[in-house]
């Protein structure tokens, strides 16, 4: 374990982002030494990189004190089971948040930074920050990987020890008797033999001893026998034959004869045969002494004794040898037994080890165990698995719950953050508000927006869908509002833009209803539009009337992303508030609030309450309304969120046009006097009338009947079903019905709206369509009117003609004399009811020979006949005809019909005039540039050509190594593809952001970012990408990523970036996802899928810098991409990903053959391959051979695991740079030419003298000079 508490490695670098690569290498080294897996190393590397980036950025901000010489110390080492990385700096202490940031906030805010801290916390186990005397210290800790378990080894050792002890004991027990017996047996046998010898000799000695005479033949015989015995048994030391008196009669030693024999001590008692023995030591030898009696023939009388002394050394040695054999045999048996026991233990413990490892793995990774162990272990594993499954299920339930809680928390935070904290101060308006969420997270939203130019927007919205999705939509809504309302005075336009912004991102089934009101503090006009929201209540304090204002509109998100339909259904209304008037915006929470009886509060109660409290100040009104509601519900909890915004007019609208104008309007609107007559009577030109009317607005009154009038009308109509409109009108004027003044036609319309049918006979004569055009056109009041207002600031006197037909009103201002452009302003709808009138007006206008500008700003709809009229007029017009200020939906139709080539159009009137009149062109160019940007349709927006290739940096430079190429895909090049290559870290992210801003991409062009060649993305890199996506989203363009490597994708998922930056695996999917045309659906097998803009089969080098996206194929699990490499056109790169098997070979080979043209170098990047077999490389080998015939070669870059085993014909390398460096180049001969015409005199002189001589001379000369 000592290696696990290794030394602390140190590194010191200059505090400069360029040195971060050193840090990364350092961390790689240190972590590898600590035994981390590559994946864990990648994580630690990223976390440390983030921390260092943080320090460099925050501790040594640019130009800060000591920035130039600042150093950064990094120490990394393992201590007590932890890897600890300390980053020390002496710069400014870090002031930001150290804790784990809320990811929800980060993503919602689409901030550029802040991900770093998140990553550090998620990738390391512990992150601390300390300020010590030595400097500021970041401490990042990660638990060291668990060492492999030694359970089995320990267990085996213990069991083996015990088993061997047992075996040894058994063998000792078994061998000891044998051991003892071995010695005894041998000795006994030996003794028997010797005894036999001795008795034999005794037998032979008997006659001699009986005779006891010297030199008898018997004694001689005895001598011989004694000597023979000595020869026979070499071990015999001495033989003595002794008579009863103790005299030696015969001995093997001659000198001993007739001497007295001394019996050795210690002779045992005689046995039955008279045999005695003694053991003694003589001269260091063990000696056995035997004494055998010599008896007479009767066997009773002893005549002497035979003494034998025998050396026992040999016999003992023999016994020892026999015992040694026995012991070694026993040991061998022991060893064998031990081996068997060991093997048995191993076999027995292996499944146990697996079980232990498995349980450990289960604890850390939750993996299941293999249940294939032998009986008991298998069942233990099964039991563990069961337990694990239950545990997982329990944990998931807990996690679900926690996630839900987090969801709610995030949603709550988002909501609290985005609702306005205080009510803005709007000149002349007083605003009261009330917000009561029903549950933890509300679905209601309200906001006040500064539009600019004295305009303020008020929005109240109800998001269908709660929780996080709801609040995310709310967040988007807020962002969108902030973006779209600025300087956009049109409520309708804001809503349709919001729809455009949100609809695509909203889930199916989610929608937002919303009411958007624009308060004009200068002109005291209120314009509003509703996206399917509950009506707004207007209280006219002057007349004590209430109105339900509910302009037409679909909820955002309901019509899918069909913006045209949304816009078509959307109405914008305008209204003028008088002093004391009150507008109430609310959500259905109030009307749907119920009391204990289950009764809803309802609209009627609300209107009644509005009437009751309408004269209070806005704040009091809201409080009173809340109290009223509380009283009604009796303390019941709200079922839905409750939002109220009350707007009170304090100032009142300025009078427009004065007394005369009001009388004029009264005469025309109330008394029905034709406009021409009325104007003549009051001495006002019709154009002035229309202008004033436009300023004052038809909208000074709401278009609907007030609730009171409506209720009275309904009551009357229901009570008197027999009455016609005229009679109803008459009755209503009586005080009994409230002296309500309504025209019969209005009554007819209103009743129809209420669903009450009038008797057929009673239908009043309605003006037939087009009958209003009976207003004489040609001979109408073409009066001269001086232009007092600056609406048309032309100094030329203008004649004015007006038009009022069906749903269309118009004003034609033509120059009275001389050249110039006539202006036709139209308002309303150009459809079949108004076409006739328009046709004659256009005839008048074009007949005069002027150029004609038709202002379509207020035209909501142009029918096909209308377009036909305009086209015909354009053809007829002598001075030409141009359309100006088309609304976006009208403009779309215009473009769809191909009218661009028939009738010219321009963003604004001046531009249109300029298109018609060369003289006016100059004036237009002097016009304010703001005019163009205000135009809605912006048809003349120049399409900026896209830069084709952009290289950020040479690829081999240290630090910032990022390459970027841009191409286009799709039939019209509607999808831009940015291919990034290299590392996206702090340094290159800045570069990348700059690059993105320099890429002049068209608006609404979807952007795909290819990350397949990106190895590493730091938080700054992600920030750069998300910022780019947010920026593109603002101009209506989508950004998608594709081709992320596994390690990059891990971080992408960790950051939950999918909500902001969608991603695909391969280009084809990404193209389909962003709606590129002409993309075949990606087939899974055997198909080339992508339509590239520039096929590599064309020489790429021919079009210098032409960037091709490349060709991709997906065969089974193999993804291949072929693209030009570099700009020379002589090299291709083939990137391979996934799994490559030989069975994909045929189709892959066919594909390669079809697309890979002969090049100098085919660089095969196989680093993305997970596995590959030898057969697959053969495909490339064959390709290399065919390429070699054209003088090209194949270089393979592959990891050690996947590289081909034999690289015949393929040049295999580990890195791209290595591959490029060693690429063979064809030797190009250099021809040498002698140049003749130079004066080589001195040169030749030196050569003649010899170089050394010259040098000596030279040195000499200067030495002399010096002297």
């Amino acid at each position, binding site marked *: 374990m000592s290696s696990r508490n290794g030394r602390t490695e140190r590194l010191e670098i200059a505090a400069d982002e360029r040195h971060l690569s050193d840090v990364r290498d350092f961390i790689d080294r240190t972590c590898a030494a600590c035994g981390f897996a590559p994946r864990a190393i990648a994580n630690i590397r990223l976390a440390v990189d983030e921390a260092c980036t943080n320090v460099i950025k925050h501790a040594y901000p640019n130009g800060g004190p000591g920035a130039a010489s600042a150093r950064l110390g990094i120490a990394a080492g393992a201590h007590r089971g932890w890897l600890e990385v300390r980053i020390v700096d002496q710069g400014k202490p870090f002031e930001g948040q150290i804790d784990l940031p809320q990811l929800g906030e980060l993503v919602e805010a689409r901030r550029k930074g802040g991900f770093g801290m998140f990553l550090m916390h998620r990738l390391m186990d512990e992150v601390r920050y300390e300020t010590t005397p030595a400097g500021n210290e970041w401490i990042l800790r990660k638990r060291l990987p668990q060492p492999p378990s030694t359970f089995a080894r320990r267990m085996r050792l213990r069991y083996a020890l015990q088993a061997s002890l047992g075996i040894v004991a058994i063998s000792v027990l078994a061998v000891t008797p044998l051991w003892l017996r071995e010695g005894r047996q041998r000795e006994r046998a030996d003794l028997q033999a010797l005894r036999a010898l001795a008795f034999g000799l005794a037998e032979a000695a008997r006659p001699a001893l009986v005779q006891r005479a010297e030199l008898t033949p018997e004694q001689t015989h005895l001598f011989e026998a004694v000597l023979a015995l000595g020869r026979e048994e070499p071990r015999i030391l001495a033989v003595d034959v002794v008579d009863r008196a103790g005299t030696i009669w015969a001995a093997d030693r001659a000198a001993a004869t007739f001497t007295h024999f001394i019996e050795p001590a210690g002779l045992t008692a005689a046995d039955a045969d008279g045999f005695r023995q003694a053991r003694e030591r003589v001269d260091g030898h063990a000696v056995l002494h035997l004494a055998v009696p010599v008896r007479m023939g009767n066997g009773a009388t002893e005549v002497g004794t035979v003494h034998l002394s025998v050396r026992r050394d040999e016999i003992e040695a023999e016994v020892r040898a026999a015992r040694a054999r026995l012991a070694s045999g026993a040991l061998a048996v022991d060893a064998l037994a031990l081996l068997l026991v060991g093997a048995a233990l191993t076999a027995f413990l292996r499944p146990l080890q697996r079980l232990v490892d498995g349980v450990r793995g289960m604890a850390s990774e939750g993996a299941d165990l293999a249940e294939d162990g032998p009986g008991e272990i298998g069942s233990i594993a099964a039991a563990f698995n069961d337990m694990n499954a239950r545990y997982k299920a329990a944990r998931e339930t807990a996690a679900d719950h926690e996630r839900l809680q987090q969801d709610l928390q995030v949603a709550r935070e988002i909501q609290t953050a985005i609702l306005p904290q205080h009510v803005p101060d709007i000149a002349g308006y007083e605003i009261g508000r009330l917000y009561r969420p029903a549950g933890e997270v509300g679905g209601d939203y309200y906001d006040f927006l500064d539009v600019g130019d004295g305009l303020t927007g008020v929005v109240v919205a109800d998001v269908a869908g709660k929780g996080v999705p709801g609040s995310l939509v709310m967040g988007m809504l807020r962002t969108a509002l902030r973006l779209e309302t600025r300087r956009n005075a049109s409520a309708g336009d804001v809503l349709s833009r919001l729809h455009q912004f949100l609809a695509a991102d909203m889930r199916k089934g989610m929608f937002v209803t919303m009411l958007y009101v624009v308060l004009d503090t200068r002109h005291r006009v209120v314009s509003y539009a509703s996206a399917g929201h509950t009506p707004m209540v207007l209280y006219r304090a002057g007349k004590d009337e209430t109105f339900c204002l509910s302009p037409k509109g679909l909820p955002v998100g309901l019509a899918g992303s069909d913006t045209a339909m949304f816009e078509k259904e959307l109405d914008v209304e305008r209204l003028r508030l008088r002093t004391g008037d009150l507008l109430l915006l609310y959500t259905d929470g109030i009307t749907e609030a119920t009391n204990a009886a289950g009764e809803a509060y309802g609209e009627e109660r609300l209107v009644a309450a509005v009437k009751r409290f309408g004269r209070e100040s806005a704040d009091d009104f809201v409080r009173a309304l809340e109290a009223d509601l509380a009283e009604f519900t009796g303390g019941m909890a709200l079922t839905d969120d409750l939002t109220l915004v009350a707007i009170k007019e304090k100032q009142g609208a300025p009078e427009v046009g004065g007394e005369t104008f009001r009388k004029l309007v009264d005469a025309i609107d109330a008394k029905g006097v034709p406009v021409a007559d009325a104007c003549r009577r009051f001495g006002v030109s019709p154009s002035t009338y229309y202008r004033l009317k436009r300023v004052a607005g038809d909208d000074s009154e709401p278009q609907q009947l007030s609730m009171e009038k409506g209720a009275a009308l309904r009551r009357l109509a229901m009570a008197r079903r027999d009455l016609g409109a005229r009679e109803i009108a008459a009755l209503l004027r009586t005080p009994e019905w409230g002296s309500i003044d309504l025209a019969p036609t209005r009554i007819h319309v209103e009743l129809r709206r209420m669903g009450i049918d009038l008797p057929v006979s009673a239908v009043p004569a309605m003006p037939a369509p087009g009958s209003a055009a009976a207003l004489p056109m040609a001979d109408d009041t073409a009066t001269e009117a001086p232009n007092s207002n600056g609406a048309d600031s032309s100094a030329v006197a203008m004649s004015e003609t007006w038009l009022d037909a069906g749903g269309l009103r118009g004003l034609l201002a033509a120059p009275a004399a001389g050249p110039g452009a006539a202006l036709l302003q139209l308002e309303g709808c150009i459809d079949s009811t108004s076409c006739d009138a328009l046709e004659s007006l256009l005839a008048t206008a074009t007949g005069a020979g002027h150029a004609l500008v038709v202002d379509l700003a207020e035209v909501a709809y142009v029918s096909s006949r209308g377009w036909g009229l305009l086209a015909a007029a354009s053809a007829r017009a002598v001075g030409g005809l141009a359309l100006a200020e088309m609304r976006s939906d009208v403009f779309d139709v215009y473009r769809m019909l191909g009218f661009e080539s028939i009738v010219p159009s321009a963003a604004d009137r001046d531009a249109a005039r300029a298109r018609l009149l060369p003289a006016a062109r100059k004036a237009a160019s002097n016009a304010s540039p703001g005019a163009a940007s205000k135009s809605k349709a912006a048809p003349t927006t120049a399409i900026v050509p896209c830069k084709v290739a952009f290289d950020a940096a*040479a690829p*081999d430079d240290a630090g910032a190594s990022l390459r970027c190429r841009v191409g286009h895909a799709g039939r019209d090049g509607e999808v831009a593809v940015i291919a990034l290559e290299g590392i996206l870290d702090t340094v290159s992210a800045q570069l990348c952001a700059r690059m993105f801003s320099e890429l002049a991409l068209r608006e609404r062009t979807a952007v795909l970012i290819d990350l397949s060649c990106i190895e590493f993305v730091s938080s700054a890199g992600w920030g750069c990408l998300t910022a780019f996506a947010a920026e593109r989203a603002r101009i209506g363009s989508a950004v998608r990523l594709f081709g992320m490597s596994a390690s990059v994708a891990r971080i992408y998922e960790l950051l939950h970036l999918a909500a902001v930056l969608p991603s695909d695996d391969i280009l084809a999917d990404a193209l389909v996802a962003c709606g590129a045309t002409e993309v075949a659906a990606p087939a899974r097998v055997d198909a080339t899928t992508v339509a590239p803009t520039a096929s590599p089969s064309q020489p790429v080098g021919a079009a210098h810098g032409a960037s091709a996206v490349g060709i991709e194929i997906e065969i089974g699990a193999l993804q291949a991409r072929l693209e030009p490499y*570099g700009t020379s056109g002589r090299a291709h790169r083939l990137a391979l990903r996934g799994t490559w098997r030989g069975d994909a070979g045929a189709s892959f080979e066919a594909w390669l053959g079809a697309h890979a043209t002969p090049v100098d170098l085919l660089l095969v990047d196989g680093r993305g391959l997970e596995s590959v077999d030898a057969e697959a490389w053969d495909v490339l080998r064959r390709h290399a051979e065919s390429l070699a015939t054209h003088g090209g070669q194949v270089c393979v870059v592959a990891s050690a695991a996947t590289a081909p085993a034999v690289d015949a014909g393929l040049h295999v390398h580990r*890195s791209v740079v290595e591959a490029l460096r060693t*690429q063979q180049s064809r030797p190009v001969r250099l*021809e040498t030419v002698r*140049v003749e015409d130079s004066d080589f005199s001195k040169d030749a002189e*030196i*050569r003649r003298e010899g170089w050394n001589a010259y040098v000596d001379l030279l040195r000499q000369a200067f030495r002399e000079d010096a002297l």
Partner: protein
Amino acid sequence: MRRIAIAAAKGGTGKTTTAVALAHGLALAGERVLLIDCDPRRDSSLHFGLSPEPGLAAWLRGRPARVMEVRAGLCVLDSGGEALADLELTLGTDPLEELRLGRALDTLQDVDYVVLDCPAGVGPIARAALRASHEVLVPLCADYLSLASAGLLLERLVQMRGTNGAAPRLLGLLPTFYDADAPSALNVDSVLAELHAGRVLQTRIALCDGLRAAPARRGTIFDCEPLSRAALDYVSLLDEVRAAAA
């Protein structure tokens, strides 16, 4: 074959003069020398009065090119002028191209020394030339801007080495336009000793009229003023360079 790049981040520090004198000196001393003009301005070629040739630009594109043997053992490869400037565009964007010069040099035979006269700065061509060389000699004249720019080149070398080790060894900084009598000379020495200790060569190239006059006479200092102070200086540079081989 030794490949020595003469490079400096700043112009007018005597790169071409040094390259030409060094190449000629080596040739006189019996070496076979190829001087490659890597500057689209063709300074080295003009130094020998050569008329424009397809030169280096063509060679790098795999087309035939000629070298001019201007003195015995001394050949000059023209830069190709405008064509090389055009090539710079692709050099800057293509990782293949930047290594091409080095690989082309690998195919050369019968040459002892290749001297590359780089253009000023650290642009694509200069980088390619540096990548192709084994050693680099940095002339710098005794003024503030030149001293300041030396750091840029050294930094670039460190960067190149940091990525894949394919950067030349620094042979040394060579003070040129050196005037021992000028009041500032001592200062320059001390500045160099302080900033670039251990990187400065022993040799100093003295300020010498002969060096100015030589290009106009279509020759090197050895052709025009073989017994001048500058000739002596270049001889000692030569000795120092040859000694550095060991």
